[in-house]
């Protein structure tokens, strides 16, 4: 446990400490000690202004991809997972097989075929090229499916039907609440996946104005290599700290809903 804690916290400590150093200090002082000058705020200022403030643009892009992409993925996964769990129809087993299969294929392997597909549609180098693929979350669908099977009693839906509610109304008014912990979990996974998504935007986008933070920061990092090298390690590090903060906040915030939900099905009324 203590080892595990060290293993997780040391890189984080290194990152935060390094973010307080100037570029020369970064290159002249050991990793886990502070530099001569406390430059955190200066670094943050520089991060937001370097290259005409493109960091802010990348931050905005990432938020856009997360809100539309991860949000959409959650909505779609919820609706589809619920439908598959609660309704009987032909081809259900086939869908099950496809979804399980889709979970097994890593997104990285699909990136290049997806690129060629989107290129035919003329969608590469636009935000849609990043958003549309992230709308699909087979794992989220599967999670909701499993969760809905257990969390929503068929009797409850029957009762609602007898009371005269339509299927849409049942979904929106009755089951959605029951599904909340599952939805939050899926949303959390989708947010983290989209926030950290690297390979897909790397392949799809060539205009830096549409980069998310991951690709943008890597571009700054790559500047340190080769004939015209211009290392800005201090900005890469400060940018990374700024990048993980929203994710940490989202995690802490959503975790409350998530934890309270985990006990939901444990007591039989």
């Amino acid at each position, binding site marked *: 446990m203590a080892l595990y804690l060290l293993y997780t916290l040391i890189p984080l400590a290194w990152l935060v400490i390094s973010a307080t150093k100037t570029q020369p200090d970064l290159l002249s002082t050991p990793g886990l000690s502070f530099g001569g000058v406390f430059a955190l705020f200066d670094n943050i200022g520089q991060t937001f202004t370097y290259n005409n403030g493109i960091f802010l643009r990348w931050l905005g892009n990432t938020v856009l991809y997360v809100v539309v992409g991860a949000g959409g993925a959650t909505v779609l996964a919820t609706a589809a997972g619920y439908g598959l769990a609660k309704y009987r129809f032909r081809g259900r087993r086939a869908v099950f097989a496809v979804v399980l299969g889709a979970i097994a294929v890593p997104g990285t392997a699909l990136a290049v075929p997806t690129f*060629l597909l989107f290129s035919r549609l003329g969608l590469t180098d636009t935000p849609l090229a990043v958003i549309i693929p992230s709308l699909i979350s087979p794992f989220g669908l599967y999670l909701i499916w499993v969760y809905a099977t257990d969390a929503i009693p068929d009797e409850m839906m029957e009762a609602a039907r007898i009371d005269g509610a339509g299927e849409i109304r049942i979904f929106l008014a009755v089951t959605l609440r029951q599904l909340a912990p599952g939805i939050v979990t899926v949303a959390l996974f989708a947010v983290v996946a989209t926030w950290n998504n690297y390979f897909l935007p790397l392949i799809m986008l060539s*205009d830096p104005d549409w980069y998310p933070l991951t690709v943008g920061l890597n571009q700054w990092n790559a500047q340190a290599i080769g004939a015209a090298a211009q*290392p800005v390690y201090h900005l890469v590090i400060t940018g990374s700290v700024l990048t993980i903060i929203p994710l940490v906040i989202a995690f802490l915030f959503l975790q409350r809903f998530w934890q309270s939900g985990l006990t939901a099905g444990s007591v039989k009324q």
Partner: protein
Amino acid sequence: MALFRRHRALAALALAAALATACGSPAQDTAKATGTQDSVDAALKAGGTITYWTWTPSAKAQVAAFEQEYPKVKVNLVNAGTGKDQYTKLQNAIKAGSGGPDVAQIEYQALPQFALPGSLVDLNQYGFGTFQKDYTASTWTSVTVNNALFGLPQDSGPMALFYNKEDFDKYGIAVPKTWDEYLDAAKKLHAADPTKFITSDIGDPGFTTSMIWQAGGHPFSTDGRNIKINLDDAGAQKWTKVWDQLVQGKLLSTVKGWSDDWYRALGDGSIATLVTGAWMPGVFKSSVTAGSGKWAVAPMPTYDGQPVSAENGGSTQSVLKQSSNPALAAAFVRWLNHGNGIKPFIASGGFPSTTADLSSPAFLNAADPYFGGQQVNQVLSASSGVVAKGWSYLPYQLYANSVYGDTVGKSYLNGTDIGSGLKAWQATLVDYGNQQGFTVSAG
């Protein structure tokens, strides 16, 4: 299984045929064709918009100056990534048939990979072949693939020895003129201070090929479809004989090149020399501020004391076949590397490949305060004149570099001889090339 085999054979045949037709057009048909620059001049007058992919920091100033000179032309400047990232995108755009830029920066080592499948415009059709006399021989060779011209050289990287004068003076080490002296210097320095190393190298494909180049090796030769690979030729052996002693004697620092540690080590003197391209002073000045006043430049050590060097790095700008306005794109390339674009490039620390700039007194006599007032360009420019002739890269050098670590890199890691690593590299490259539809033979 038989069916499968037949299909594979068919696929290989189809690929070979596709390659043959693709290679045929730029390589043979227009081999000696030299057009005129009229259409380029006309395109400049007419104006238009082009997209330019590059990662060079000079680009911003260059594009601004170009647009000021030709207000009718708009250049859409995009930094699509550095090196490998940009090539991945370029490759994707070419495969997809659209989405690529009009002009792209391509390193010399990557050029054949894009030129041979016919993705780039042969600039001979605009008469740019007449510029040959204005460039150093080695850079001109680098942009010429099978007699077709796929760009105008921008930066060049004739190699030199950058050394930490402070370290050398402190331990009374003479600046090495030969590789044997370099070896002695490595031993002497490390013995005097075990924290200091003559240089750092954990295996770098660009460095390895440059060193074989300097030693007179010609490991890769190709006429487009047939490739010969010999990573065990006399040149390669000459180099490994020296370098094996450094690796196996643990005389090299294992700090990874271009990492923050590496920059740090260059600043504090724990890496005492770098054998690298002439573009390095710009990197020193912008990124190794702690080393200011400590470093100096000397000619690259040789095997027999006779001056000879090689190129390391450097890139060109090419026009893509995909471009909807290739004449205007070519005009931009001409301005960049054969016109007023060179000045902002040199001003931002770039090392040119044009002989006029390399021999201008202002360039040669500039005293560089970072190097203690040394006129470093005299050394660097002299190196550009003695680059060993006849070098060429593989048509799939990018792939080769990506698998270098699995083969030669292991020799470094395990301290075994580099020659056996080179043989493993060669075997991988022969297999890969044959799978790609080339006819590759070893030796």
